[in-house]
């Protein structure tokens, strides 16, 4: 891919030390460093491509040979600058991102371009290209993947380029030519229906065009134009490759297609008219800048929850509605009103509600455990600067069976904000003694760029999640994550100092969960787990009992909980572990060595646990036990759903109605109305109701915690306190319950910074994750 008419990848090649000194911030004209950088900050963040993600896409279409594990990727890029300087860079990703530093330059670069490139694995790439003669840049992808080759040959690439860039091509800002060097040369042009710019309001030969310009959205933001067209002679097959993305209204930013509004318009555009319907939207400069921030890094959409984006969608819908009315298209009928208790909600509650589940019919899955260990430069916070070391890095694994075969571990880093993933330690075989395995990697230096021996590269500032994965037989059987901050301090966390949870296992009947029936005489393993979110060790007293039962399970037994550096993920520590056997009060206590025997009447009993430090209760948790009874087979329903014909209602709202709570939503809510007009209104309605139910359930769980400053966790325990719901991998449930939900809990506290914005985003993410786990439960 060669560009021209640009300024090339100008600017200095900056060595690592200099980049570190500058805190990885670049100026506008430092294009070479930005192109090679993975997420460096460039001052003109508004320019497309300036954030670095687009360049990585080239790598994914290469497939050179010689990969030891996984797939190898590489690309070369040369540039000619204004003063005649010539550079040739090389980038590998297999899977670690590596850049040749310094790049080839001058005659050496030209010579390689004319002949071949040989890398340090003796891979030879025959280039035989002409060096660039005009100022510009070329990206060379050797060993193009088969998928990419097919896409060029069958026209899919051309169609995609047309869809994305037709407007920039039309305004002569861009020219794209596909040339296979043999017989195929294709210049990308705008689609036929958009060729007659400027567009005027016309109706002729079965085609109607309408434009609307300078639409004020308030706050100084304007849509420059919306242009709509209907041509009864046009079908979606006319778009090269049969691309349905043209069948709607394209949103263009920077003259690039970002997303298409189509489903939202189904109320106005009848099904039979959709093949001939087209539209696009352009924005004025101020709005373009605003949208840049609201755009996802892959340039495929905008934040739909943002008010400006919502205003844009409304303006488009209004315009399309007017267009449809003018053309006499009848509005689509609404589906019947939803029932009060939809089946999807009942299914969801039965899946997540611990006491409504029946006894399991299959054995409890084997449990792997995995833990990442290392020492930090500063034990008080989880921060490492580039150039510093993580000491004694190790991954410890416990397997469900002794001496397991074919087990390996890998370690990966994911940048939490940017989503970037880097491999830190490739799959390494693990040896076991009995059920315990450990891989030790010693002290590892954290670097920004290419990692050598004894180093790991975490190339971006900010929060990273280090994830260890345990592989067996090609499958990932367990993973564990830990947070670390690179080159910046972790933000203060508003978590409770201590949190506690209870796990119960029926050793006598391993096919039953802890929340299932426990018969008299069953040996039950009780483990009280705690997390210490403070940097200092805490000495606690553990108290556990069943109300009205005189004999306690644990009466102020001391436990020292290790501290957690600020920003790090607190380990779950066992504060108390023991076996318990329940027996009838009027019988002689059974003789069970090593177990505590507790006389208790049959029934549904609550196990209460307190962690006390310095005389205060720092954490508490309940657990429901069913002693000699089956859990009630009732449908758990924290609140009922109530749809109301009220346009002024918000999307959803939890309301106290007498002693009950109800989840109110508006039957006139625009999204719901549109979903009811799709081809499958029931599915649309179910999706809407499930989404609001998940959001409301999370609020129901966390609301009392927020209002009681962390003390009232009863609702939370009802939703998240039990074992993972059926069909959910434990590590995925753990990630939701032990990372995402606590982050939301912290963000929603009264003294949290910017509580609404962050909490709102996290709330949506948690609800989305809950829905995903529910929908994937049968897979």
């Amino acid at each position, binding site marked *: 891919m060669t560009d021209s008419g640009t300024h090339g990848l100008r600017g200095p090649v900056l060595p690592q030390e200099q980049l570190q000194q500058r805190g990885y911030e670049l100026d506008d004209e430092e294009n070479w460093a930005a192109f090679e950088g993975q997420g460096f900050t460039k001052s003109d963040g508004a320019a497309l491509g300036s954030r670095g993600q687009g360049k990585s896409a080239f790598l994914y279409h290469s497939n050179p040979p010689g990969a030891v594990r996984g797939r190898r990727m590489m690309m070369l890029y040369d540039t000619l600058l204004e003063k005649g300087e010539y550079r040739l860079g090389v980038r590998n990703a297999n899977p670690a991102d590596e850049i040749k530093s310094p790049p080839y330059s001058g005659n050496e670069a030209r010579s390689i371009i004319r002949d071949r490139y040989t890398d340090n694995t003796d891979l030879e790439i025959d280039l035989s290209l002409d060096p660039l003669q005009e100022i510009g840049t070329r990206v060379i992808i050797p060993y193009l993947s088969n998928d990419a080759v097919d896409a060029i040959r069958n026209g899919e690439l051309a169609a995609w380029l047309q869809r994305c860039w037709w407007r920039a091509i039309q305004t002569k800002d861009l020219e794209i030519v596909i040339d296979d060097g043999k017989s195929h040369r294709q210049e990308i042009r705008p689609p036929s229906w958009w060729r007659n710019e400027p567009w005027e309001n016309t109706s002729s030969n079965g085609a109607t065009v309408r434009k609307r310009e300078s639409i004020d959205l308030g706050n100084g933001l304007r849509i420059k134009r919306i242009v709509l067209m209907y041509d009864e002679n046009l079908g979606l097959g006319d778009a090269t490759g049969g691309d349905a993305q043209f069948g709607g209204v394209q949103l263009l930013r920077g003259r690039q297609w970002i997303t298409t509004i189509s489903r939202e318009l189904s109320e106005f555009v009848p099904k039979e008219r959709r093949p001939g319907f087209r539209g696009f939207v352009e924005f004025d400069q101020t709005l373009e800048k605003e949208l840049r921030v609201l755009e996802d890094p892959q340039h495929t959409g905008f934040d739909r929850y943002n008010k400006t984006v919502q205003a844009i969608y409304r303006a488009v819908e209004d315009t399309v509605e007017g267009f449809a009315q003018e053309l006499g298209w009848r509005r689509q009928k609404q589906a019947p009103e939803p029932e009060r208790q939809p089946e999807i909600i009942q299914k969801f509650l039965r899946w997540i509600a611990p006491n409504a589940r029946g006894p399991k019919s299959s054995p409890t899955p084997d449990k792997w455990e995995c833990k990442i260990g290392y020492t930090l430069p500063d034990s008080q916070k989880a921060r490492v600067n580039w150039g510093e070391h993580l000491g004694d890095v190790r991954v410890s694994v416990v397997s469900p069976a002794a001496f397991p075969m074919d087990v390996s571990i890998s370690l990966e880093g994911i940048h939490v904000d940017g989503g970037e993933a880097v491999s830190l330690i490739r799959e390494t075989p693990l040896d076991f003694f009995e059920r315990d395995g450990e891989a030790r990697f010693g002290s590892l230096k954290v670097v920004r760029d290419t990692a050598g021996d004894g180093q790991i590269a975490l190339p971006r500032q900010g929060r990273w999640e280090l994830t260890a994965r345990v592989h067996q037989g090609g499958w990932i059987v367990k993973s564990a994550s830990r947070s670390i901050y690179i080159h910046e301090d972790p933000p203060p966390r508003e978590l409770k100092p201590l949190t506690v949870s209870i796990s119960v296992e029926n050793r006598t009947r391993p096919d039953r969960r802890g929340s299932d029936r426990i018969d008299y005489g069953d040996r039950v393993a009780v483990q009280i787990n705690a997390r210490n979110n403070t940097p200092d060790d805490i000495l606690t007293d553990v*108290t*556990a*009992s069943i*109300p*009205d*039962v*005189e004999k*306690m399970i644990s*009466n*102020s037994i001391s436990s020292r909980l290790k501290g957690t550096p600020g920003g790090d993920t607190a380990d779950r520590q066992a504060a108390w572990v023991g076996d318990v056997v329940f027996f009838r009060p009027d019988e002689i206590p059974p003789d069970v060595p090593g177990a505590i025997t507790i006389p208790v*009447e*049959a*029934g549904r009993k*609550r196990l*209460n*646990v*307190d962690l006390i430090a310095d005389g205060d*209760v720092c*954490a*508490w948790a*309940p657990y429901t036990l069913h002693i000699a009874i089956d859990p009630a087979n009732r449908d758990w329903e924290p609140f009922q759903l109530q749809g109301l014909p009220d346009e002024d209602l918000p999307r959803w709202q939890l309301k106290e109605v007498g002693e009950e709570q109800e989840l109110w939503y508006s039957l006139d809510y625009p999204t719901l109305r549109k979903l009811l007009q799709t081809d499958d209104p029931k599915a649309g309605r179910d999706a809407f109701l499930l989404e609001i139910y998940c959001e409301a359930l999370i609020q129901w769980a966390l609301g009392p915690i927020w209002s009681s400053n962390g*003390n*009232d*966790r*009863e609702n939370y325990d009802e939703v998240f306190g039990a074992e993972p719901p059926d069909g959910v991998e434990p590590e995925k449930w753990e990630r939701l319950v032990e990372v995402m939900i606590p982050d939301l809990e912290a963000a929603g506290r009264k003294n949290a910074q910017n509580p609404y914005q962050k909490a709102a985003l996290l709330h949506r993410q948690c609800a989305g994750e809950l829905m995903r786990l529910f929908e994937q439960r049968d897979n």
Partner: protein
Amino acid sequence: MFGAEEHRPAAEAFDREIDDMLDRAVKLTESVEAGTAGERDFIRRWSLGRALRASQLQKSDNFEPDEDKILWEALSIKCQNGIRSSGKHEPRWRDLIPERDSAPQRIERDVFAGGLWLQEQDLTDASLTFGASLTNARGLHRRHAVSNINLRTALHQWLKTYDETSRRTLTRTKNFETMAKALAKRWPGRGPGSAKQPVHYEQDVLNDELRRVLVPLAAELLADAPPQ
């Protein structure tokens, strides 16, 4: 397949047992002198509970352990209608339960279960603990975590250390409610601090802890009391 007749003998025997229990309750009530109407209600409730415990009706084979509700309903109807197993009318039973406009199907949990609970202390001790007030008794009974006999024993022993005038002040409805709230706050039924409840303490330790909670509060209540 099943008919009611085969169960008649057992039902009639049980009916007679209920009659005996109610008669015993009436007898206990009449054996104690009461001053105010409130004190009479207190004694009736205690008596009903004591008679119920002595009768062992709850342990009858006719009921499952969690079917007390059915027994309370039956007793309530018996008291309301006053019809003996012989068919004769017994008006004195009516006084054993409160007046209610509603039908007898309304479950008188407070009456029978509350009576059982109240009689765990002897009448003298219970009267001193609650100032012979059913309102006070209900106030503690509904706070399950602090309704335990150990705590009532500790409360009784602590109140005994005050003279009668001070006790009367402390067991006034409003003051007793304040003390009950303080006890419930110290020993919540759920949530933080609920793992160790009065039932889990040795009596002397519980006595000390109760004093620690109530003595400062009692001083305020007594200081605020209008002169007698």
